[in-house]
């Protein structure tokens, strides 16, 4: 579920949130029935975009997320970006109940996420096994679009007259090129295979022949 962007930088997006409230059917004081439904809103200070949401689940079964844009007219609507997403494969059981989830932009139904001012999380837990449910530790992340130093330098060097890129005038015949490249490719392949297998399959249990163990412990002396 996580997309790795080694070359991009992440910004965390700040927000305010109100308490998670349970939803009821009918008059609040009269009903005893637990609808198993909770809702809360996130308010972004400045309207911003985001590319990733992560949170830690606490026994929530299904999650729905809606977003609202800032520059709203009077007929502004909530758009659904995640509809009843199953967080726990079996709502009566333990799996997925305490798991950390990451949602990236391409998992959402509606991927236009610029100028968002408000998010609404709707949590559902249909099972009667649990006392309480919710989600904790919500984080919003956005990719940093500012240009890095390398990109700026490249742009500048393209336009500058002092730095010239070398161009090949005469190429050697294709056959020769391909044989050279093939042996190079084989070498690179072998090299990556060697480095990929960094951890030993069956490591030795002793250290340089010493293995005098006197006590088991959990902390370093």
């Amino acid at each position, binding site marked *: 579920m996580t997309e790795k962007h080694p070359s991009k930088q992440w910004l965390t997006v700040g927000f305010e949130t109100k308490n998670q409230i349970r939803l009821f059917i009918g008059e609040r004081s009269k009903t005893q029935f637990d609808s198993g439904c909770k809702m809360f809103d996130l308010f972004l200070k400045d309207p911003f975009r985001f590319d990733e949401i992560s949170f830690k689940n606490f026994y929530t079964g299904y999650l729905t997320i809606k977003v609202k844009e800032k520059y709203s007219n009077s007929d502004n609507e909530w758009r659904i970006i995640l509809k009843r997403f199953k967080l726990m494969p079996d709502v009566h059981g333990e799996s997925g109940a*305490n798991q950390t989830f990451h949602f990236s932009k391409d998992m959402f139904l509606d991927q236009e996420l610029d100028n968002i001012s408000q998010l609404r999380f709707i949590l559902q837990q249909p099972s009667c096994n649990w*006392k309480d449910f919710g989600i904790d530790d919500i984080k919003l992340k956005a990719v940093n679009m500012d240009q890095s130093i390398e990109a700026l330098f490249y742009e500048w060097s393209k336009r500058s007259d002092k730095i010239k890129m070398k161009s090949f005038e005469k190429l050697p015949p294709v056959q020769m090129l391909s044989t050279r490249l093939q042996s190079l490719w084989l070498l690179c392949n072998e090299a990556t295979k060697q480095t990929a297998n960094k951890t030993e399959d069956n490591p030795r249990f002793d250290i340089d022949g010493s293995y005098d163990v006197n006590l088991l412990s959990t902390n370093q002396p």
Partner: protein
Amino acid sequence: MDLTNPLLNTQSYYEFLKNVQEIASNSADISLINMNDVLINRIKNSTSSRKITNLIFSGLESSSNDEKNSLSGSYLTKAQTQWEKKLVKSFNLICTELNIPLAKKRSIVEGQELKRIWNELGTNVSDMKKFRPIFTTSELLEHILMLKCSNFSDLALSSTTGLINVPISIKSFAELKRQYERISLDFFQSGLDENLNSVIEQEKHKNGVKVVEINDVVLSKEFSKTGCTRSLRSKLWSQILNVDIGNLDAVYYNYLKQCVFEFDFLIDSIYYKDVKTKAVNDDQLFVFEDLLYQVLLMFARDTHVLKCFEQKSIQPPKAFIKLKNSSDLKYHQVIYPPNGFIPFDGFSMLVAPICYVYSDPMLLYFIFRKIFITHFYKLSIISSDPQSIVGLCALFENFLQSKDPKLFFQLRKMDMQPIRIAFKWIIRAFSGYLQSAQLLELWDRILAFNSLEILPIFAAGIFLYRRQSLMSVPNKLHVESILDDLKSVKVVTILQLVFA
């Protein structure tokens, strides 16, 4: 879930690649465009490609099991950590009481002596009285019964009548019936007495010979679901587990043997005691005493076993040592025992029945190791995996209650919790309680269906089978004596009874 990368470094892949290269260089009708299709067609049914498909299938199975249950609930991980700390304490206590180091290097003379008596290790055992097991199965049961989920609602808690009140998602009866469909009366099961020497049994044997020749994991599994015929059992088990001994494995086996000669562990004595008190006293398993010592001593030194723990985020017990012959004053961390596994009393009984199937010590060792890292390690860990011992206990109680609530209620009236009897059966996978031939039938099904769930189902089946006697009994001592002797029990008939 990356299946291809680990494959690239194996011997099977190297042979497969050589095969493909041979075909490519010998075929005249290959061009750049159709190379992929032509090569795939030609290599499809060869042995080398079969080995690759077997590896991928086994990798797929083990990784799908891991993914589903990779993150257990926080109270379960806490319980597992608590249990691990308890084991470490108990082990340290034994060590300080007896004043024997946990591990030390053997003298050269001692190592040579051990090498000499390697095939009769039973004679090496001296005074075993002072050793005691690090933990007993009843201690583990008590720890499991204390598990409590703080978020579990009171309503749900009060509706459980069994002892396990942990909400692990277990399969329903309908799901299990579907999963174990091949055990039903509709299919011919080999190994029942009345079937021996019958025409159908012989035909099944002929089919079995063909299945063994093809050497495909999936096919061997499907065939074994209705039981392995006795003569084919060893080949079928090694195909199902995808264990193939190569030169590298033989070298590793000898390395482990050398480790036994070089280092002396306290845990060796614990294993010795376990074999002497449990396996040797069993009239069906005492013959394998020497083999058991060999397997268990090498098993304790095998770091390959650590792999099954790291995927489950279980911490093996650690120790800190100073290097002997160097000026390095730092403390280095090592894992003790090297395989990271602390055995319970009766653990040697999980090895003994396999000796009936394999006589070659090397093949026996690798088969046992594979069965351990695929199935048996789950029998002593606490996690949300429905096949861990907690899940198996929950399945047993749920199954018995839903199948026969009257019987369950009757037992509860006598202040008897069925799980207390069934626990010792399940944790030893019924080894030592059943006739060996019947036990192997049960273990065929564990391997073929790739799940330990058959153990609690069979345990519930025994209760159902002895229902009449259990219902008419006045108190719980009689219950225990009725369920004490399982030597006359036939596995397949009881399983068919349960799923009928």
